[in-house]
């Protein structure tokens, strides 16, 4: 089974990479891009029967730094 973890900087934490992407889109002529936030997606191949609680624990311990990042887990 698979799990997918989305890690994003928390709202309110400046994302300089997202800002750079926003400026680049503007200079390509894409008007109206009011904000860009860049995060990461981590895909996990897990043994059958693994639980979302375990993946949540992985996020808390390693996959996200909860001081500045939030995460979301999708199972299956």
């Amino acid at each position, binding site marked *: 089974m698979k799990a997918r973890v989305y890690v994003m*900087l928390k709202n309110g*934490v*400046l994302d*300089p*990479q997202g800002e*750079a992407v926003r400026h680049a889109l503007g200079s390509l002529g894409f008007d109206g891009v009011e904000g860009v936030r860049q995060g990461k997606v981590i895909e996990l191949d897990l043994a059958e029967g693994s639980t979302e609680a375990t993946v949540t624990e992985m996020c808390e*311990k*390693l*996959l996200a*730094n909860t*001081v*500045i990042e939030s995460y979301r887990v999708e199972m299956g």
Partner: protein
Amino acid sequence: MKAAVIVFPGSNCDRDLAVAFEQAGADVTMVWHKDTALPDGIDIVGVPGGFSFGDYLRCGAIAANSPICQSLIGHAERGGYALGVCNGFQILTETGLLPGALRRNAGLKYICRTVGLKVTTADTAFTSGYGVGDVVNVPIAHHDGNYFATDEKLAQLRDEDRIAFTYEDNPNGSVADIAGVVSKNRRVLGMMPHPERAADDGHGGTDGVAMFRALMDQFATA
């Protein structure tokens, strides 16, 4: 003073840090990241700069979960001293021994140059050789040195006089110009600038020497 310097795959300031400790008179042991215990009788653990584990996932995140870091956390919880420089600072925040986190530099560029640092507290074993308000010149070399702490944490750091150094001219977007902070018991210091790279005339500056000497004095009189 007995110092241990941890070596991770990708550390590149480990030997510089060891030399800075040695030149102050310390007895230094290098410790591999897979070791599960620090040598007996260690006074201070140096967590060096570099790119541990290639900065994969997040700077310092994988190193912070390595076997030796469990021992480092135990050492700090027993009241032991630790100095984390650059990637070492990132690792100490990832272990939770120091508050906050280091983000990508606001200008997105890797910055390598000497900067002016203002000493904001002399009430630590690391900074007692300086005066509050002194400006020291120390090199920085980082891509992810943009310090972040919540407003609440920042207020706590100020109230407890735990901001060790601030940048004279903020190079990376750090909140409140913060370049280094200490733990609540004042025995763990993390800083992005490299005092071990300002520790010999050949470096072009020696403003970092006072930190290693002050640590030596601390353990000589203890």
